[in-house]
């Protein structure tokens, strides 16, 4: 099966000074569900950022979706990002936009028609159990609901890769379970690759997954 992400001696740092990730070698295949764990400050989020080109690479190579992230051009990076689904711990919703408009942001960016956007928003909000809240604004929702909007947004364009940075970090059990279910389904039914940075792997998880961990020295290991 083809690699969706491939890192070879990948080294990441902030401002070329503090090395966060050191000589990491790994590959993630299509349809893999990957958890990345590690102590606070070990570089989990940093590694995730490098997958969507939010951080420059100091050394080694990183290929995401067949694109060399070391020498990627701006237009190619924009194209890659438009095919990714990204979920943040702090939701990162656009507060002045309605829930519906937030959900279809990736479709709007790609120029889909309003009809497609409306249909997709309805379907996704039903999936994340937020039907009827289309016209609400993010600030009118609870944290758990906002994160479900974030996940719906990530799924809007059927991405080939979902990257989630502590998606359930601030959530209650109900919202966390909804989010894990959605991610499991995306991976299992749509063969989407999912990479989740988290402190805790959920106790009950219904599909096979891979587990990477980062130690305090910035080395990345796979736990079998």
């Amino acid at each position, binding site marked *: 099966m083809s690699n969706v992400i491939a890192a070879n001696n990948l080294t990441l740092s902030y401002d070329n000074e503090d090395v966060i990730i050191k000589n990491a070698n790994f590959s993630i295949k299509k349809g893999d569900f990957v958890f990345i764990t590690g102590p606070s400050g070990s570089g989990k989020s940093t590694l995730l950022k490098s997958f969507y080109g*939010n951080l420059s690479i100091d050394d080694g190579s990183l290929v995401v979706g067949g694109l060399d992230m070391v020498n990627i051009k701006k237009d190619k990076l924009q*194209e890659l*990002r*438009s095919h990714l689904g990204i979920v943040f711990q702090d939701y*990162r919703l*656009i*507060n002045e936009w309605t829930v519906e408009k937030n959900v279809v*942001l*990736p479709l709007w*960016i790609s120029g889909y028609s309003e009809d497609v956007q409306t249909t997709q928003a309805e379907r996704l909000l039903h999936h994340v159990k937020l039907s009827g809240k289309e016209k609400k604004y993010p600030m009118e929702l609870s944290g758990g609901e906002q994160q479900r909007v974030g996940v719906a947004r990530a799924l809007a364009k059927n991405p080939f890769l979902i990257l989630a940075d502590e998606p359930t970090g601030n959530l209650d059990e109900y919202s966390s379970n909804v989010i894990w279910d959605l991610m499991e389904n995306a991976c299992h039914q749509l063969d989407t690759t999912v990479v989740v940075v988290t402190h805790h792997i959920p106790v009950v998880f219904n599909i096979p997954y891979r587990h990477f961990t980062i130690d305090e020295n910035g080395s990345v290991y796979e736990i079998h």
Partner: protein
Amino acid sequence: MKFIKTHISLIFPLVAILLGLEFFIVFDRTTDSFEKSLQNGYSMMVVSKNEMSIDDFKAWDEHIEQVIELEKNKILERLDMNKDEVKKKKFAASLPNFYSLKLDEYVTVSELEGVKSNLEKSENILSIENFHSSYQSKYELFSFIKLAFQTFIIFMSIIGFFLIVKQMEVWNFLHAQRMKIMEIFGASLFLRSKVLINMAFIDAVISALITSTIFYAIQNIWVRGSQMEILKDNVEAMFSFSDVIILLVASIVVVMIAVYLVVVNVKEE
């Protein structure tokens, strides 16, 4: 209320800048015609031994544009010569030549002195009267008004500029988060700034229309009803349709530069 405040905070400085620009254009246009009328109303008197052509004068100073010879007969007519033709002819032959010289532009006082001293180099020229003191008083008053007005325009533009910089900071605060999120999801620079561009464009059009309306009102209500001849003479130069286009283009250029600077300075987290 918030909506109005958001728009006013850009429209106000933009109108200040556009008023400055339009005042500059109008002032330049009206002073141009005023300068021409001053220039037309001014001439220097030259007395020469022998007849001189325009080329003879131009050879001494390039500023000379027109030469009008004052006819000797007219001078003689004013003198009572008891209709003695012989006396008259003798006197006419002994009279020097009188010329009135017009200049090609409204020169400064020192340039005027320069023209005089250039002409004085000619041995053929006996006397020059450049009416220096009347010219100087008009020139100094005109220069003072021009300087005062230009200072006012520059001051207004600086204030407008700083208010726009302030507005850019507000935009950054209001729009940066949305633009960062959109960038993460692969939006192009244009898409990220679309909301800001639309808003700024509307404000630019409104500002240009407000400024145009102000000048249209000045032209048609205040100037036409004014008792000041200089304003009445230049009423058509006050405002024209082409000014609306100039204001619109200037307004759009200013806001688009401001939008661009805000957008490119939004950095991903």
